[in-house]
């Protein structure tokens, strides 16, 4: 299962990042995972130095996004991704501790593809991530289609 999709993981909590990675690997997904622990560094990577996102043009990406970041909110990043002509078709999976229905609604309105709450119950958390692996395997990332 050699998928060229690169997983961009934007998660400030290293523990969460590690748990997510582990569970992704456990579900048999071996794609490259690029971790970022702050919003700024992730935005720099995604949109490049010029901020247009042209650097990432044609790359198959998948974004795992935490909403509570120390330097900005994940919502802003989500919005920018979905407004950018090069990145808007990139699937975004929002992963957060918030299960506030308003916020979930907001994320979907902004174009988030999947919303996963990080439950404290580890079993359901692991399950959610593993299902995400399943999701990865069926997802068809547009290959440099734009």
């Amino acid at each position, binding site marked *: 299962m050699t998928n060229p999709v690169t997983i961009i993981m934007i998660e400030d909590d290293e*523990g969460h990042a590690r748990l997510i990675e582990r569970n992704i690997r456990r579900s048999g997904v071996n794609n490259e995972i690029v971790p970022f622990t702050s919003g700024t560094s992730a935005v720099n990577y995604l949109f490049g130095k010029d901020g247009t996102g042209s650097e990432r043009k044609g790359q198959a990406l998948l974004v795992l996004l935490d909403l509570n970041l120390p330097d900005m909110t994940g919502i802003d990043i989500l919005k920018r991704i979905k407004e950018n002509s090069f990145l808007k078709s990139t699937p975004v999976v929002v992963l957060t*501790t918030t299960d506030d229905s308003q916020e979930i609604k907001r994320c979907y309105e902004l174009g988030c593809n999947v919303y996963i709450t990080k439950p*404290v119950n580890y079993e359901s*958390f692991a399950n959610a991530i593993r299902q995400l692996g399943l999701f990865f395997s069926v997802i068809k990332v547009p290959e440099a289609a734009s």
Partner: protein
Amino acid sequence: MLLTAGFLILVAISIASVLLVNKARNDSGWVTHTVEAENQINALLLEIRRAESAARGFLLTQSQDFRRDHETAVANIQPYADKLAQMIGDNAAQAANIKKLRTAIDTRLDQFKREIKFIEQNDPAGASALVLDAAAGGTAITIRDVGAAMRIEEERLLATRTIAADRSQVMASSVTIAGSGMVIALAGVSIFLVRRSSRARDEAEARLRDANLNLEFTVDERTADLREANDEIQRFAYIVSHDLRSPLVNIMGFTSELEELRGDIFRRIARLGRVAALVPSAPEDATDGAEPALEGADKQLCEDFSEAIGFIKSSIARMDRLISAILNLTREGRRQFAPEPIKMRELIENIGSSVAHQATEADAQIRIGALPDIVSDRLALEQIFSNLIDNALKYLRPGVPGDIEVRGRTKLGFAVFDIVDNGRGIDAKDHQRIFDLFRRAGTQDKPGQGIGLAHVRALVRRLGGTISVNSELNHGSTFTVTLPIQWNASVRNSRND
């Protein structure tokens, strides 16, 4: 006070005026009286003179005309003298004078009669002698002197009485003038005082208006502050509980990872142990998840490990529940209420049918009495009453069929609902405590977080009501919810979040 003083002065002045005017009238009456008396004296003396001159005329001419004239005068004298006596009899000096005068008059009249008789007997000489005698005897002189004395006395009286009359008139008018002056002065003072007090009242009113405006402003300001503080707390609670969750996910995640590791570790220990003991091994890793067979100290170690992880996990789960509860509460606190007319009986019946299963299990019945309808938030009311009815079902006395009653009444614009049960009851010392977050009371044999009543109280307060409990251990509980019949959303629901 001032009015009373003014009134008293007015009354005093009136009385004084009346008295003085009366006195003045009396005095002038006396003056008139004196003048009349003097007139009377003159008239009497004149009549005597007339009688005398008529008698003399008759004496000289023997004309019957003089005689008639004389008799008319004589007839007048006695009544005149009587009248005079009556007029001035009150004066002792005059009384003495008149007595003297009367004696003289009587003597003179007697002489007149005798003169007339002499003339009728044609004895003019006798008559003349008598006339001379009268003149010499001083009867006429006596009459003249006494009359003069009386006139002088009357004039003296006239003078004093006139002065008295003048004085009392002057006094009456000065009292009247003074009184009028005082009344005018009082009126002036009154007007001044009334003006001053009305000005003071106007000023006070203005100040009151200002104060009221200020007060409203202050209240608005404070309300805004409070609302802000409340919002701040809500946000704070929300953020805190949110951020608390993040590390909890890690703790739980890695604890679970540890648990997995534990399985691996102890399986390896078991295998190593078996290898060391050269025990004929069972087929290696036949079932991966099977508990590794451990002996002695290793087994103990494994159990301790499991126990520790078990405690950690249950604590985490508990903490997660608490955080969720706080989150829910703050979310409730942020929810907008939408007041609508609600048929309370229907609402309670719905709750009753949704807990019918639990009620049957607990061998309990729910009775619903007449309930007043109110205007309020439906969801909040459902949460309030289903929590209370749930509690009533949950904390029944074991072995006693449950009897739960919901009844209502209205009181001064409020609807009062009682939820009465015959359950295990609550100790008086716990009556406040049960409404606190995460606090419970009594035997802890039922699952729960200690959130329900805290939540109920928060909701009732937001709806502008109160909740209280009346209960005794083992004698059931009565929860009383008081809510405004017409809930006004504008006051407490005006925040926009």
